[in-house]
């Protein structure tokens, strides 16, 4: 979910033209460059890694375990659920730097107008969407919707976990979408559109392959910013883009951020983290300069720099309060760490994860569009996961 929107990519492209005084900037995509250095036998000493790439790099022995070079006590300050993204069979391969979670972004002005508090559970979510949508349509906003959804896996997965389901079993090696809990979650999700309460971008239903991976997310974010929907799910980067939109669409209302509502079985959300690991065996030894650099990049001084942005939440528990002090309106993102669920396959390649993400979007789009029943969609998702994620 990893996942940043097309706006971010546009920003990144523009920003890379900014020349720094010292750092060397390459327009080459990161993982292309990293792969080249590995193939050439000249890897960087310390390099960046994320939730979805880590399994492949760890499984293929391209990143070195840190257990021999770091004192276990050094890792105690990090959220265990984030560290787990970089751990396998008792070994730690990278140290998380920052993370994001998915929260509920609400049009606070409308919630205040209708006397509503943030929905605490699924029932209240539906009630709020219905009440605001009905009121706004009666007021003349004919195309107003209570909530914006996309067919993307990341958008549905929080509901899956809230219903007591999961994408994978605890070992990350078996797909678990053929369950009653998954059926409850997808039924609830698709019913939001069946009831007419959910705005789902038409292009993401009619041509989901083309709108993947960022199109639908960008559309619901834009619709929310324009005051056309009352709520959307989104990670920190969504809120950051609403505050500083690269293409207009700055909301004319107060944006509220709340933790996702509880489902019938649990309060749950998903997140995305990045970290640093050691890639060069020549410099991956206790007390090496590379270890010093790794410690620095994940230490308090570095986090102090990242914490200035609402997008980068510190992975050290001792820094949570400092981030919240700087972004009090966004604390629900940080509070979400208590309910984070893992969706990381243990061994799947990034290519397979990416293909699963793409094809699962098509299946969920068909379910949202009413072309296939929920049970059939889950059968297809399970089969797809069996092929790609195990």
């Amino acid at each position, binding site marked *: 979910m990893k996942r940043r929107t097309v706006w*971010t*990519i546009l*920003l*990144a*492209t*523009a*920003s*890379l033209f*900014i020349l*720094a005084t*010292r*750092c*060397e*900037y*390459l327009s*080459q*995509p*990161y*993982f*292309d*460059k990293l*792969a*080249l*250095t*590995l*193939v*050439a*036998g000249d890897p*960087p*000493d*310390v*390099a*960046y890694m994320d939730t979805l790439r880590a399994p492949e790099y760890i499984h*293929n*022995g*391209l990143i*070195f*375990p*840190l257990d*021999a*070079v770091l004192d276990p006590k050094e890792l105690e300050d990090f959220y265990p659920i984030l560290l787990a993204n970089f751990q396998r069979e008792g070994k730690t391969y990278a140290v998380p730097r920052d993370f994001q979670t998915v929260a509920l972004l609400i049009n606070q002005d409308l919630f205040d107008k209708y006397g509503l508090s943030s929905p605490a559970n699924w029932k209240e979510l539906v009630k709020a969407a219905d009440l605001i949508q009905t009121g706004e349509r009666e007021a003349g906003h004919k195309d107003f919707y209570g909530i914006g959804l996309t067919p993307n896996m990341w958008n549905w997965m929080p509901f899956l976990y809230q219903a007591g389901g999961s994408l994978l079993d605890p070992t990350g090696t078996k797909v678990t979408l053929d369950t009653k809990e998954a059926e409850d979650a997808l039924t609830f999700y698709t019913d939001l559109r069946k009831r007419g309460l959910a705005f789902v971008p038409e292009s993401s239903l009619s041509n989901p392959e083309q709108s993947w991976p960022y199109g639908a997310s960008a559309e619901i974010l834009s619709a929310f910013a324009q005051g056309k929907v009352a709520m959307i799910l989104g990670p920190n980067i969504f809120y950051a883009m609403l505050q500083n939109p690269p293409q207009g669409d700055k909301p004319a209302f107060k944006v509220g951020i709340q933790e996702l509502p509880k489902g019938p079985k649990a309060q749950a959300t998903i997140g995305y983290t990045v970290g640093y690991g*050691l890639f060069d*065996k020549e*410099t*991956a*030894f*206790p*007390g*090496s*300069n590379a270890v*010093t*650099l790794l410690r*620095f*990049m994940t230490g308090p001084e*570095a986090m102090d*720099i990242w914490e200035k*942005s609402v*997008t980068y939440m510190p992975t050290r528990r001792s820094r949570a309060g400092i981030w919240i002090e700087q972004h009090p309106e966004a604390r629900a993102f940080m509070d979400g760490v208590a309910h984070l669920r893992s969706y990381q396959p243990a061994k799947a390649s*990034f290519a397979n994860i*990416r293909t699963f993400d793409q094809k699962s979007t098509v299946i969920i789009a068909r379910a949202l569009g009413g072309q296939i029943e929920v049970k059939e969609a889950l059968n297809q998702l399970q089969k797809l996961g069996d092929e790609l994620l195990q």
Partner: protein
Amino acid sequence: MLVRILCLLFVLSVVATCGRAAQPIAAPSAPTSAPTAAPSRLTEVNTKPLVLMSWAEDSFEVEAFKQLEDAFRKAHPDIPVEFLITSP
């Protein structure tokens, strides 16, 4: 991007078959555990600078890496370092 990596691997495998050295990405010759014995400090002297690779998504990140590199150099003036920052 994946396509480019696969193409690269294919090209390199052809090169390797022709007798030239190439190290495939998925089958490194390196061990999967870090050495536990620290080499002499001398092994880190007179070698190339440490390389940190990361990506920057926007101007905030670009500026953050500049600050981080400066801060690291200030804190560890004896450690040569190079920040290699790419697009995402």
